[in-house]
């Protein structure tokens, strides 16, 4: 655990010392802020549900951009050899890098709590729904970041890793569109794989273990695959 924390802290410092992370966070906040204000001023509803729902789509692009360099860059710079010969396992490196990205995005989500606080000043939001929505968004975010880490492990090109991450997440975003047309048994499986379907309930104020398990499985699965791929490079 301590080794994971050391890797995570290193990644976090790298993020905080580069302008890209700030630019990415500012861009994300600008778009979600626009969604928030438009929803609030348009519907006058004391809620952030609409903003969170739309912000998920922006996350599809932001998460892979944030994570695309994590493993791909190590390969490109040739530092992976050094990293993987230290007394830290591949799994610890992958999880540590993921944790670094997750800390940045968690900080971003905490900043986004300003939105419901603003709503609270002028109305009476249902805080149960707000907290459930933010919790679901955080879980979805962890899955997105893990997917980004996975695509970053596939290549030594940051660009390819980023594009592959966006493509993968977009696929998971729209995968249930075909569910209605394909019918059973493929349709229900595709609907269950949809990354958005599982968020909808959180955003309505429902915490369901099924949805929590889904996002945690996705996170674990992508990190596991990323680890296997990196490990495979050592013996191939």
């Amino acid at each position, binding site marked *: 655990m301590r080794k994971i924390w050391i890797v995570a802290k290193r990644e976090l410092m790298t993020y905080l010392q580069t302008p890209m*992370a700030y630019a990415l966070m500012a861009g994300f906040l600008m778009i979600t802020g626009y969604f928030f204000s438009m929803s609030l*001023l348009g519907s*006058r509803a004391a809620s952030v549900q609409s903003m969170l729902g739309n912000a998920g789509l922006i996350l599809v692009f932001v998460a892979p951009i944030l994570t695309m360099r994590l493993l791909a860059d190590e390969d490109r710079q040739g530092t992976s050899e050094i990293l993987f010969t230290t007394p830290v396992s591949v799994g610890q490196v992958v999880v540590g890098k993921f944790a670094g990205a997750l800390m940045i995005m968690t900080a971003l989500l905490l900043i986004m709590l300003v939105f419901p606080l603003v*709503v609270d000043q*002028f109305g009476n939001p249902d805080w149960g729904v707000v907290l459930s929505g933010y919790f679901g968004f955080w879980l979805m975010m962890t899955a997105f970041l893990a997917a980004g880490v996975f695509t970053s492990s596939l290549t030594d090109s940051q660009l390819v890793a980023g594009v592959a991450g966006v493509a993968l997440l977009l696929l998971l975003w729209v995968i249930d569109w075909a569910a209605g047309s394909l019918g059973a048994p493929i349709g229900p499986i595709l609907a269950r794989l949809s990354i958005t379907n599982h968020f909808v309930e959180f955003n309505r104020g429902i915490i*369901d273990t099924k949805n929590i398990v889904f996002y945690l499985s996705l996170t674990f699965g992508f990190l596991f695959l990323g680890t296997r791929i990196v490990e495979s490079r050592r013996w191939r």
Partner: protein
Amino acid sequence: MKKNLASRIDWRSILGILSLVALAATVISYLIYETRGSAMRVSGTAAIVLVAAYLASGGLGQLRFFRSRQFFRGSASTVYTVAVIGILIVVNALAGQANWRWDLTHEGMFTLSDQTVSILQDLRDDVHITAFFPEGSGITDEVESLLREYQYHSSHVHVNFVDPDREPALARQYEVTRPFTTIVESGGQTRAISGQNLYDFSGYTGNEPSDIQFRGEQTFTRTIMQLTQNIEANLYFITGHGEADLYGEYASLRTYIRGEGYQTKQWNPGRDGALPDDADVAVLAGPTRDLHPNEATNLRDFVDGGGKLMLLAGAAPGDESRFPNLDSLGEYLGIRMRPDAVADPARGYYMDAFSPVPRMDYHPVTEKLIEAELLTVLPLSRSMHAIEDYAGEYQSKRILFSSPEAWSETNLSAPNPANAEAQGVLAMGFAVTRPRDPEEEVPEGADPETEPVAVLLGSSAFLESDLFGFQGNSDLFVSSLQWLIDRPDLIAIGPKRPIPRQVFLSPDQGRMIFYGSTLGLPFAVLLIGAIVWLRRRNL
């Protein structure tokens, strides 16, 4: 010998093979039974235990096949990956069966009542719910969340949402012509629930309904209960005297009350004879020709035998009644209907004196409308009054009446209050009861002293499609039915009442929020980034 055989058996390999078999069985049963089924539960649990035991025992490294250096790394890694993915699928499948859900909404919007949960847990037959709702609508989300709860509480409930725009053929197959219609099927029976059956509202703000309440749970639970327990009321609409058609002028009425759980049939007594035994309520709405004396006798016998009657007359202005047999039926119940139309300029709908908006006496039929401040309009209504020297067994209570400025008009083309037979407050509706048999079991919530018999209203025009949706018109009809069948409601699940959550912003506050959230917040993050970057550059 035994020892030799035991040593030859590769227990770990067997464990590994059993793990893969259990994983495969789980995935197959998951595909077949979707998220439920004891087969999947058993095989899933077995798969997790076996894979864990296999990995703990040294797993892949111990298999002779994988001892080969050529195959070991690649093949073992692949098998390991497949096993982990399999476990993740199994864990998700098992999690899909667990019903651990927490409704964090303040009003418990997605929590089913104990009554619904009990009905769902007692289900023995499958219930298929096909909801024809357009994607992306707020109503769709609300209904979908609710029906998911139904699925969670019973494996017999199967829900399918269909966008009627995307699958028009399926909508045609179910004869669905309007969006937001839900088809509930069980045991070969089908019920259609319209979107109107899912919401209540109290009054209007401008032209928009206000204080909208979602009563989807009440509607769905009642429908499931009726389909699976065969408890429903049959309404027989009497025809043959110029009454409006259930499939024409009363189409909206028919859709709505079927969605409320009533079965509707048309019955022509001249052709079909006396009402059948399964008739709970006979509805005689707006006849333009009189009943035959035998038909009036049959209806009297029906009421005497415990049947319920809704008599909705229509204006019959003239010096003499054109409906002697119909009127005799009313008089049998203690009500005399005048051959007139009520003119009430003080409470005329859109200044039309012949479309009075009646006041209401407090009664089970009207209490919901009074409490919700809903109005009804009764165009071309006959006035009526209780017969003073009535000696029959029935008792009547006025439920609708006009303003004191009203009069009984017999000439619609030249209205003149001076010629009126009656002026002042005129009754337009009565509820008729009889003393309840002391031996009879009193239904829960019903009056223990009297039993409902009939509702008489002066107008039937309010049931026609163009007026049926007006404020409380549909409620007046359904409340009358509920009272008549002596069950205040089949189930008493109150509608969810979400707390209105609105923000109130001045234009300046709106601008402040817009600029603050779209520019202020991102700028603050950029500023922090710039400070960090500059400090690092100067190090």
